[in-house]
């Protein structure tokens, strides 16, 4: 789940960690009520600063995905399905926006982009 954390990327590690967790919860990899690794173990495993892990857990707790029970650890909250789909859509728009920015830089026009997407999706559908 956390295999491609990239310390070199400009987005801070806690943000990368948080988005990975959010995705996992959204995609159902982490079922509600499941316990997350302790800050100490995850930090040691990923060899990142413990503060990074704590901040990621706190952000997600703030967003309602996780709950940190004092002394017992961190658990996945029961997220309503609507919440999970809206999260997935949000992820999709982020991906698309990134795609468009890259296309612009490469001088690819929107129509060409659109037709490429349809073609790819068509191949996938058939």
């Amino acid at each position: 789940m956390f295999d491609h954390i990239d310390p070199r990327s400009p987005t801070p590690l806690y943000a990368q960690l948080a988005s990975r967790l959010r995705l996992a919860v959204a995609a159902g990899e982490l079922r509600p009520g499941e316990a997350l690794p302790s800050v100490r173990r995850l930090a040691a495993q990923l060899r990142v600063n413990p503060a990074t892990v704590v901040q990621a857990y706190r952000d997600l707790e703030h967003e309602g995905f996780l709950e940190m029970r004092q002394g017992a650890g961190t658990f996945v909250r029961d997220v309503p399905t609507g919440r999970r789909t809206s999260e997935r859509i949000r992820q999709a728009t982020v991906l698309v926006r990134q795609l468009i920015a890259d296309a612009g830089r490469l001088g690819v026009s929107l129509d060409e982009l659109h037709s490429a997407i349809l073609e790819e999706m068509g191949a996938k559908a058939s």
Partner: protein
Amino acid sequence: MTHAIDIRGLHYRAGRSFEIPSLDLRVPTGAIYGFLGPNGSGKTTTIRLVLGLLRPRAGDIRVLDRPMPRQAADVLARVGYVPEQPHLDPTLTVREAMRFQAAFYPTWDHAWAEELLVAFELDERRLFGKLSKGQKGKLMMLLALAQRPELLVLDEPTDGLDPVVRRDMLAALIDYVSEGGATVFISSHLVHELERMCDWIGVMDQGRLVTELPMERFKNGIKRLVVSGAPPAVAAPFSLLSRERNGAATETWLVRGWEPEMHAFFDSVGASLQRVIDLDLEDGFVELLRTFRTLPPRPEEVR
């Protein structure tokens, strides 16, 4: 105690060869402080001064809130040190080296030492001299960690070691830090490793401290801007480190202290900011050093 290490106006000179004219360095308690710098920039000397192995000519060094090197003996009992060159006696076996070290540190944790011994897969009967470079590194880390220090001073602990050994050592280090909240002062050339772990970065070059910032501010602070149509002289809200023309239309600026809202500045001077390129720690470090050596040193706005 706000800072585990607090160096003010340190001046040190060894013969004619090398000098630290004046150094101010402060490591917040509980931080993992990465100490970057090219070879020969005085990193190891600074570390030895912090540990009281060397006596400064002037300046005030306080480690764990105690003056060094006057109270070196008491402070060193609470500091774990992994030197650049393993300095243990080669004729002692791993077990004997551990027993030797344990006798000197009141806070030595025997149980944890055994745990680490197993975790690091060290054969306790082998002579220290016969261990591989990686095993020696692991043993040094073991000895430093097993004494449960409040401050860990690591001088390029993982340099030149294979990834597996590095992973084990850093995992144990992070495990200890996250458990006890100890402070780590680690110098290394493996920049991306520091990037993962450190929340503070200090850069040293030619005996002077270039900058000392939290990791985020260091990384976000340095950007490369692709600009077109900018007038030659410009007074910018950020510090312009270098300007290079690439092709007819655009220039690449290297800037420090960049804030997102500074986009407006370009409109005000009639230039257009095409792109903001982020730098990772390594690029940032390299660029910083390159420009630092060209620009005359001027007092940094620190923190």
